[in-house]
């Protein structure tokens, strides 16, 4: 009889271990909140601040790469297990996630409808499901600018002053023309822009219609505005203006360190990346000026609260706090992320802000001006996926695998499947 008793005891013990392992939410009476992020949200200081004013809360942040983060989130939602209490979602993916709003807490039922007017109207609608459920609070918007290397432009005989640089490129055609001038005198291994896909994303972000029309039909194949941009970038690539580095990859990061390119398309969040990658030794070399064509948006994110979380109410509270005007203003100054709160665009603390890393560029004025001019573009369900496909397509041109026309045709065929 004894072995049997022992076995039962073991089983009970094992069960107890498993159960306690699963329910480790509270440690020492504190509520533990996890927050899943990608890239740099500039939240490190804010999370400390929140924890110090909320002694009952312990916050753990985990950061993954852009694509890993969103793929993991999908997998976690599918299994109903493993998602953080708060999960960030990028503009490129928010439509895919809001198609299954029941996986998330409807923030409208948690006081979100009262906060609605904080945000840009299009930002609020961006994460609103078809049946009116709000799955996420907006964090930042991208806006658009161009970041450029003063020293490289100067050495190639181009102006370095940001107003004069802006005057070089009122349009993208001018931008490419300036690039050809730059390339004549550029040192070996230094190119005008980082990669075709980066430039193309900015042009797409400025178009009045993007990959989808408002009925969620994929229309990019007939979109003349985007095709014109494609032709222009493909021509720039074939003229040798591109470093042929795909954005947000390790080799692209190295490109900043090695100074392989003179310009890069700069949504506001790009500034944090440049600062992280180029490092302190490049401080003052980079500057920011306005984007050819004017206006446009690329990226920006939302904080969602998956329904499977154990501390939904406290997570909603934290998400609302992190996206509140005061916090967005702080993040703008610390990490450069452009607030999605229109009230802040006239706030002198924001408008007068100059970024010391970027040669004291008046990024406050630059990006709030851009944000005010911004004509929001409708994003369809798989915009992020199509963005990847068009990036691949442009890379095929860069790698010499296909010419612009063939690659475009393959891209259109791929996304319409």
């Amino acid at each position, binding site marked *: 009889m004894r072995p049997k008793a022992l076995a039962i005891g073991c089983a009970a013990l094992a069960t107890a271990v498993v159960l306690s392992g699963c329910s480790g939410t509270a440690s020492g009476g504190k509520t533990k909140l996890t927050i899943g992020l990608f890239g740099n949200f500039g939240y490190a200081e804010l999370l400390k601040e929140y924890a110090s004013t909320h002694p009952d809360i312990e916050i753990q942040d985990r950061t993954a790469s852009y694509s890993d983060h969103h793929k993991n989130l999908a997998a976690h939602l599918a299994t109903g297990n493993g998602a953080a209490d708060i999960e960030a979602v990028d503009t490129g993916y928010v439509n895919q996630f809001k198609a299954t709003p029941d996986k998330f807490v409807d923030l409208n039922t948690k006081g979100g409808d009262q906060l609605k007017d904080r945000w840009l109207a299009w930002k609020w609608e961006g994460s609103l499901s078809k049946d009116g459920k709000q799955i996420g609070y907006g964090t930042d918007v991208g806006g658009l600018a161009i970041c450029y290397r003063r020293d490289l432009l100067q050495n190639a005989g181009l102006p370095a002053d940001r107003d004069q640089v802006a005057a070089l490129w009122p349009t993208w055609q001018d931008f490419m023309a300036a690039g050809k001038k730059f390339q004549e005198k550029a040192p070996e291994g230094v190119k005008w822009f980082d990669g075709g896909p980066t430039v193309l994303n900015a042009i797409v972000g400025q178009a009045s219609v993007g990959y989808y029309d408002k009925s969620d039909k994929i229309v990019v194949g007939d979109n003349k505005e985007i095709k014109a941009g494609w032709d222009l970038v493909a021509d720039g690539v074939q003229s040798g203006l591109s470093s*042929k580095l795909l*954005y*947000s990859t*390790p080799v*692209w990061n190295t490109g900043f360190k090695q100074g392989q390119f003179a310009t890069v398309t700069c949504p506001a969040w790009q500034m944090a990346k440049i600062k992280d990658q180029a490092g302190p030794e490049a401080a003052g070399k980079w500057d920011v000026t306005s984007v050819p064509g004017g206006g446009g948006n690329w990226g920006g994110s939302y904080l969602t609260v998956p329904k499977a979380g154990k501390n939904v109410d406290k997570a909603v509270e934290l998400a609302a706090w992190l996206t509140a005007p005061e916090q967005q203003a702080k993040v703008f100054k610390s990490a450069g992320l452009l607030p999605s709160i229109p009230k802040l665009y006239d706030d002198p603390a924001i408008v007068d802000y100059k970024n010391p890393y970027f040669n004291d560029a008046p990024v406050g004025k630059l990006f709030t001006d851009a944000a005010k001019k911004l004509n929001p573009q409708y994003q369809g369900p798989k915009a992020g996926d199509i963005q990847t496909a068009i990036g*691949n397509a442009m890379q095929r041109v860069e*790698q010499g*695998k296909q010419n612009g026309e063939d690659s475009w045709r393959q891209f259109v065929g791929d996304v319409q499947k």
Partner: protein
Amino acid sequence: MALIDKTARRHRWDTKFAPYGYVAPYFLIFGVFGLFPLLYTVWVSLQHRNLVESADAYFIWFSNYAQLFADPYFWNAMGNTLSLWLLTTVPQILFALGIAQLLNRKVRTRTLFRMGVILPNITSVAAVTIIFAQLFGRDFGLINWVLDLFGAGHIDWQAGTATSHIAIASMVVWRWTGYHALIFLASMQAIPSSLYEAATLDGANGRQQFWRITVPLLRPQIIFSTIIATTGNMRLLAEPLLFNPGAAAATGGSDRQFQTAALYLYEQGFSKWDFGYSSAIAVVLAIATIIVAGLGYLVTKRIRTE
């Protein structure tokens, strides 16, 4: 009397059923983690099913398979899988045989060497891939730097089909050769030395002894290694995925030039959220793996002494 009778009955019961009890844990674990997921995958592959919203799923029976067999990107991925299978499995086995032969000699510090060959295998696959991706970097990679020294110029390893396959295969071969070498070494040590002594007396040189004695006697291990390597190499995912990190990682290159079947499954499942379709890929890939492993078995079975 009654007591003895009871004990005897219990004894009989014990000998009859206890063996099943002893082997049950394996079958239970296999059932939960092996068989159930397998059958579940087949079940999902018959549905139109979104990864996140399983409530809206409905049966479409074999439509996923019909679509799959007409999908050029699937065949592209299968082609890449087979190419990588060849480029990884064959060198792995050949190098492992060579290394095992070298390690079988009486050299100083041979334990150190023997331990050393297994080291690549216990390093994390992600770390290995990230480092190899840097070695094969276009602009600042070590391999291009060396090629440059010899005036061979720069190679954009990721861009080409052949070059990307070579780069990925080298990661796999580097990681697994030592593992197979140790298996071969263990069996080599079991070959009686009298065979070699007799061969030497008959005038056979080292090369002849290796191909005529060692390799044929290692046949069971070579079959085992080929099958293990095949099942691993037919589902390469981490290497091609991390070779090209970033938002486009799941497509395996700008033109899917190194997208394996497992990576295509990952793309369909986790980028496009088409759970049914990706399950169909999984089922077909599993069947293909069995076929290819069978081919490997038939080839290696032919090894024999003349």
